[in-house]
């Protein structure tokens, strides 16, 4: 089928892009240069491709790009960059939660979705929130520790966003 011109809103920017219907949001994002969104399993098992779609964390490999038209998409790089990291990213780095780093953008997105709804989660709730994100370095302990550190200073998250 022919490509169609669609509008994607990503990290506050608007892109007009011609896409065929069988292109997933994951491929659309990476082809537009949002390579912080990682391609892991392409079946929703690993969470490496997680993005926020209208505030909810989803696997971008399971969304057709056409289905994302009109939605606000935010990737990990939209939350913060190496120069200006988001408190979640900073805490993960400080805690030693980042090893190979492949799962981290997805973890950041899942953690952001959690903290937006629940600024002071229990450890159980943190583990639950990232249960769709696989870390093959199995660094979960320090990842959970990093997210927990932010919850102790949730005010800093809010101030960093204002």
């Amino acid at each position, binding site marked *: 089928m022919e490509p169609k011109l669609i509008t994607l809103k990503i990290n506050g920017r608007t892109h007009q892009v011609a896409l*065929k219907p*069988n292109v997933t949001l994951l491929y659309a994002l990476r082809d537009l240069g949002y390579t912080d969104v990682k391609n892991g399993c392409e079946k929703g*098992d690993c969470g490496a491709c997680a993005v926020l779609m209208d505030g909810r964390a*989803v*696997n971008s490999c*399971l969304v057709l790009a056409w289905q994302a038209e009109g939605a606000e998409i935010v990737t990990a790089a939209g939350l913060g960059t190496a120069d200006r990291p988001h408190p979640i990213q900073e805490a993960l780095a400080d805690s030693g939660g980042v090893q190979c780093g492949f799962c981290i953008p997805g973890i950041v997105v899942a953690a952001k979705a959690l903290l937006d709804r629940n600024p002071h989660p229990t450890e159980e709730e943190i583990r639950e929130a990232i249960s*769709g*994100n696989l870390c093959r370095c199995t660094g979960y302990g320090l990842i959970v520790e990093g997210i927990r550190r932010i919850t102790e200073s949730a005010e800093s998250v809010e101030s960093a966003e204002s």
Partner: protein
Amino acid sequence: MLPEFELLMPRALPEALEMLAGRASDGMPIAGGTNVIPDLRGGRYRPACLVNVAGLPELRGIRWEDGFLVIGGGVTIAEVLEDPLVAQFAPVLREAARVLASPLIRNRATVAGNLANASPAADMAPPLLVLDAEVELTSREGSRQVPLKDFFVHVRRTVRQPHELITAVRVPLPPESSRARFFKVALRKADAIAVINGAVRVDLAEDGRCRAARIALGAVAPTPIRAYEAEKALEGQPLTPDVIAGAARLAAEATRPIDDLRGSAAYRRAVTEVMVRRALE
């Protein structure tokens, strides 16, 4: 990369139903895509046309209507988890939603899609079976209500016709004395397909006896099933350890499990008995 297909993007339900009718021979609906996209990639099916029903306004929301809790056909598992009506009147459904796949999946996957996909291990099926839920199937000709116990035909086959869409799942209000529980055995705590799952429901009479019972089991037969003989063994009886043990045995006998990578048939049958007994205790 996914195989090629045509993608139709209706903006409202009537338009979607027209499209499904027009493409009944080679089309299928897609909502959250959490089953459809992996299945397209894996080649389980090859529709020439997908009709996007995610976001249709008519399929949104959970509400009361004529004594039924009506879960719209577009409601996600995450929305079930957050809904106060579900928490109050159908907590067993919430229990199952909590352990269905992962938070990332729950934000896209719909209740209707979990049923339409007709996996024997669908986590929404046992709680909805014990709640006597009905599936509302709508085409451009109109709607029909199918009791969920009659909805599943075989592995990944249901009575839904290609031109029909699940527009709602309707749950009658359980009586005050009704208690229900969900259980799931899986190889890991999160993001796991059930080795077995199930739900039990007991409505108590004033004398403490069981007035009515429902037992539903998943991943132990080609479809989610009810264990009717086990239910009968409870009805009219006091819930003594002997009565419960007998019903649990009959529930295990109702299973027709297979061996697969998640567990053997023998294990599934044995653990069914244990889990039903514990759920009834």
